[in-house]
């Protein structure tokens, strides 16, 4: 009779190999886990004291019925974030709409992003309705700009803000084309993609974003969806809110109340 105890058959080899491999994998992942979390803690510790990105879900609401088109938001944004002073670079801007009839003719203008105010537009005379719409990055939950970034320089932070890592951005402009809201531009000084950060340096310190801070009528409201005390909940509950281009399913985090169908 053959003794099969010490002989390495295919079956016993596979058995042994499976055990060793799974044990090895568990050991390595077990050893790596504290290293990983330590790295994460380091990244968190560099943030302003006591700020936990996972504890927030920032969003903004804009009440069209309150916007007076003073353009203070655009001015404040430029001052706060060192946005290039030359025209046509904006992280936030205001648009003026003129609509005739049920949308048979629509005229949109935004002279210098509205930061110098809106001079009378003769072409808009006789419009049936006219209103101002502040625009900014929508901080989409499924942001197209994030999806097209080839290097992972654009990302959505744990607190729901779409940001650009300018040290990592290669300035390929994919994101500028991908954004359906036209919220991105290439900063002529750094030659990297630039956009609204929802004033990340302010909100992490407990301040309001600059645009919401200076808005004289309270048309812009900033809030935290994860904070039950945030006034944003009452706003979203009491108003009929809409987002821009909902058919694109980007799930924006900028909510508009009183939005007209002509606003794109």
């Amino acid at each position, binding site marked *: 009779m053959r003794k099969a105890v010490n002989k390495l058959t295919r079956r016993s080899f596979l058995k042994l190999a499976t055990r060793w491999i799974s044990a090895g994998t568990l050991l390595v992942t077990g050893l790596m886990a504290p290293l*990983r979390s330590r*790295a*994460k803690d*380091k*990244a968190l510790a*560099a*943030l*302003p004291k006591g*700020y936990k*990105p996972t504890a927030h879900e920032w969003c903004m609401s804009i009440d069209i*019925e*309150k*916007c*007076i*088109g*003073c353009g*203070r938001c655009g001015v*404040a944004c430029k*001052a*706060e*974030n060192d946005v290039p002073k030359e025209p046509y670079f904006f992280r936030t801007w205001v648009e*003026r*709409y*003129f609509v005739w009839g049920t949308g048979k003719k629509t005229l949109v203008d935004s002279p210098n992003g509205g930061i110098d*105010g*809106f001079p009378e537009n003769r072409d*808009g005379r006789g419009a049936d309705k*006219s*209103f*101002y719409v502040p625009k900014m990055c929508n901080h989409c939950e499924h942001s197209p700009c994030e999806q097209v970034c080839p290097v*992972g*320089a*654009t*990302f*959505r*932070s*744990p607190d729901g803000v779409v*940001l650009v*890592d300018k*040290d*990592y951005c290669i300035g390929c402009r994919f994101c500028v084309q991908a954004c359906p809201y036209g919220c991105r531009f290439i900063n002529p000084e750094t030659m990297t993609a630039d956009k609204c*950060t929802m*004033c*990340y*340096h*302010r909100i*992490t*310190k407990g*301040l*309001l974003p*600059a645009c919401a*801070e*200076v*808005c*004289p*009528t*309270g048309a812009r409201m900033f809030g935290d969806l994860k904070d039950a005390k945030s006034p944003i909940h009452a706003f979203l509950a009491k108003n009929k809110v809409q987002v821009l281009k909902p058919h694109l399913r980007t799930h924006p985090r900028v909510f508009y109340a009183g939005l007209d169908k002509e606003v794109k």
Partner: protein
Amino acid sequence: MVPESFGDFGHYRGNALAEIATHTPQFAGRQACAECHEEVVNAMANATRKVPGCETCHGPSATHVRLIDDEDVFPPWDPSPNQWCVTCHATDPSRPEAFPQVDFNLHEKKSGKTCIQCHDPHKHRLEKKK
């Protein structure tokens, strides 16, 4: 090849969060104003115009707050000599109808005074300045 902190939170550099957060604020926020200018902030809170922050009219004042102990205090912008009220209160058909608007040329011509000679910008809009 993989940069430090890449993948800590997702497919990006985790340290980028803190780097973006290091930018210095230019606007101090109204709580900072209330620390010294309590009476003005309280007057504003009791007025009908509760919403405008101090820096809406006075401009970014974080430097003013930072250098407050300095002798050479950077003063916030004084809007009074300018026609500042026009920015928001000029008649504009695109503005919401409920928002108080006035034709400044007519109004000033009629009264012969500037806005703040009668209206106190820190108080109720109908309250006349003493």
